[in-house]
C-alpha cells in the first residue's frame, strides 16, 4: 500500500510537471500574441486617426465643393450672406510662418550642430547638449506666452507697429522650437561621418574649417536635410505658439508684419465655438485632414532620406 502510494505520488508529480511545462509553453504563445496585438495597435491608431478624420471631413463636401475648399480665397463660415470655406489663406499663412521659421532655424541649427560636433571640447559638449534638450522641454504654450510678452513688444518697437503679433513673431518662436530637433539630429549626422574623411581632408592640407564646410557637411547632408524636414513637420503642426503670437486674422496674409492665421490655429479657435455635426464642424475636420496629410508627407520624406542615409553608412 505504501509502495503504491509512493508510485502514485511520483506519477502525480510527473503529470504535474508535464502540465507545468505545457502551460508555460501555452503561456509563452499567449504572451507572444498579446504583445503582437499590442504592436498592431499602433497601426490601428494611425489608420484610425486617418479614417475618423476622413469620415468626419467627408460631409463637408455635401455643401462645399472640393475645388472651392482647396482653392477658395476666403474663409468665413459664419457669414450671414454666404458661408465661405476656402483654405488658401490658411495654407499660405502656414507656409509663410513655417518657411520663416526654417530660414531662421536652419543656418543657426546647422551652425550649432557643427560647433558641437567639430569645435567644442568634449567637456563643453557634455554641458551644452543637455541645455539644448532643456529648450526642447519648454511647453509650447509658454513659448507662445513669451511671444506675447517679449517678442511682440520688441517687434512693435523695431518696426513701429501697433502690436507685434504677426507672422514674423510666429516664425521666430517656431524657430526656437524647431532648433533642438534640427541641432540634435544634424549633430548625430555630422558625428557619424567616418573619421577617415576628416583625416584625409586634413592630410591634404585643408584647414579644419574647410574640412567642416566642404567635407563633413556635404557628407552628412542627407541627415541634415532630414533634420530640417523633421523641424519643418514640427513647425507646421505646432498650434499654441502660432495661436497666441500671430494675431489670427482670418484673411489672406499681406506680409510678414501682418497677422496670419494658420491651419492649426483656425481649428483651435473655431472648434470650441461650433456646434457638433454642422457643416462648419465638418469643415474644421477637413482642415485637420489637410494638416494631417501635409505633415504625413513631410515626415515621410524626411524618414525616407534618413533611412537611405543609414543604409549608405552601413
Amino acid at each position: 500500500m505504501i509502495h503504491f502510494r509512493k508510485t502514485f505520488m511520483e506519477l502525480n508529480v510527473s503529470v504535474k510537471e508535464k502540465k507545468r511545462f505545457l502551460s508555460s509553453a501555452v503561456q509563452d504563445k499567449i504572451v507572444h500574441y498579446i504583445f503582437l496585438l499590442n504592436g498592431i495597435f499602433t497601426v490601428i491608431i494611425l489608420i484610425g486617426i486617418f479614417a475618423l478624420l476622413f469620415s468626419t471631413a467627408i460631409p463637408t463636401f455635401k455643401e462645399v465643393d472640393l475645388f472651392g475648399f482647396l482653392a477658395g480665397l476666403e474663409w468665413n463660415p459664419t457669414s450671414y450672406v454666404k458661408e465661405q470655406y476656402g483654405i488658401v489663406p490658411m495654407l499660405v499663412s502656414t507656409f509663410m510662418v513655417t518657411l520663416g521659421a526654417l530660414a531662421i532655424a536652419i543656418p543657426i541649427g546647422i551652425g550649432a550642430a557643427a560647433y558641437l560636433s567639430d569645435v567644442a571640447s568634449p567637456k563643453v559638449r557634455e554641458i551644452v547638449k543637455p541645455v539644448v534638450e532643456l529648450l526642447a522641454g519648454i511647453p509650447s504654450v509658454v513659448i507662445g506666452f513669451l511671444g506675447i510678452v517679449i517678442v511682440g513688444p520688441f517687434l512693435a518697437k523695431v518696426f513701429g507697429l501697433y502690436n507685434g503679433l504677426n507672422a514674423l513673431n510666429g516664425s521666430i518662436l517656431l524657430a526656437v522650437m524647431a532648433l533642438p530637433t534640427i541641432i540634435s539630429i544634424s549633430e548625430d549626422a555630422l558625428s557619424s561621418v567616418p573619421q577617415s574623411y576628416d583625416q584625409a581632408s586634413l592630410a591634404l592640407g585643408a584647414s579644419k574649417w574647410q574640412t567642416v564646410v566642404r567635407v563633413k557637411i556635404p557628407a552628412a547632408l542627407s541627415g541634415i536635410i532630414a533634420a530640417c524636414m523633421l523641424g519643418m513637420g514640427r513647425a507646421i503642426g505646432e498650434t499654441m505658439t502660432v495661436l497666441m503670437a500671430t494675431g489670427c486674422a482670418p484673411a489672406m496674409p499681406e506680409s510678414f508684419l501682418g497677422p496670419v492665421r494658420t491651419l492649426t490655429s483656425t481649428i483651435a479657435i473655431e472648434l470650441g465655438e461650433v456646434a457638433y455635426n454642422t457643416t462648419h464642424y465638418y469643415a474644421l475636420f477637413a482642415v485637420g485632414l489637410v494638416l494631417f496629410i501635409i505633415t504625413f508627407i513631410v515626415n515621410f520624406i524626411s524618414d525616407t532620406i534618413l533611412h537611405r542615409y543609414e543604409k549608405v553608412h552601413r
Partner: protein
Amino acid sequence: MKNKNVTQFIGFMFLRLCIVLVIGALCIILYDIFSKGLPAISWEFLTESPKKGMTEGGIWPAIVGTFFVTVITALLSIPLGMGCAIYLNEYAKDGKLTRLIRMSIRNLSGVPSIVYGLFGVVLFVQMMHLDTCILSSGLTLGLMTLPWTITASEEALKSVPQSYRDGSLALGATKWQSIQTNVLPYAVPGMLTGTILGLARAAGETAPILFTGAAFFLPFLPKNWSDQFMALPYHLYIMSTQHHAIAEVRPLAYGTALVLIVLVFLMNLAAIIARYKLRKIRLE
C-alpha cells in the same frame, strides 16, 4: 596660408555665435519667466482657487487637474508603450508587419497635437460618449505620448546584452520567462526614465485638451474621472489671451508659466537623475 587661418577664425566665430544664440534664447526665456514669475508665487497662489473672475487667487485646481490628467496619460501609455516595445525588440522578426508597425510609430510621432485633439473629440467625446472630461483628455494625451514611450522603452531594451537572454533560454526557460527574469528587471528603469520625459511633454501640452475636457474656470476640484478640469497649460493660455483684463492678470500668468516650467523641468530632472543613478548601479 594666413588667409586660410583668417577664414577659419571667422568661420568658427560664426559657429560659436550660433550656439550662443541658442543658449541665449533659453536664458532669455528662463530669466524673463523666473524674474517676473517669482513675485507672483506665494503659498496662497499655489493652494487656492482663482477668485473674483480669475483676477486674484491661485492655481490649485489647475495643478490638480494637470496631475489627474497626467495619471490617466501614464496609465494608458506606459503599459501599451512597453508592450509594443517588448514586441518590437524581443519577438518581432524583420518582415513586412514589423516594418509597418515601425512606420506607423514614426508617423504617429509626427502627427500634430491638434490632430490628436480632433481624434479625441470624435472617438472619446462623441463615439464613446465619455463627454468632455479628464478621462477623454488623458486618453487623448496617452495616445499622443505612445510613440515616445515606445521609442524610449525600445532603447532601454536594446541596452540589455543579448547574453542575458541566451543564458536563460539555454537553461530551458521559455521566451517569456527569460524576458520576465533576465530582461525586464534591467530594462524597466530605463523604460520609466524615457516615459517620464514623455509624460513631462504631455503635461505641458494644450492643443489636445482644448476640446476634450479642459475648462475655462471651475469653482470646484474635479472629483472623479468624468468631471471637467482646469489644467496649467490651458490656464496660462486663458490668462494670457482670453481673459477680460489681460494686462491686470499678467503677474498671475507669469506665475502660472513659472509653475508649469518648474513642473516640467522637475520631471525632466527626475528622469535624468534616475538615468544617471541607474547607469552607475549597472557599472558597479
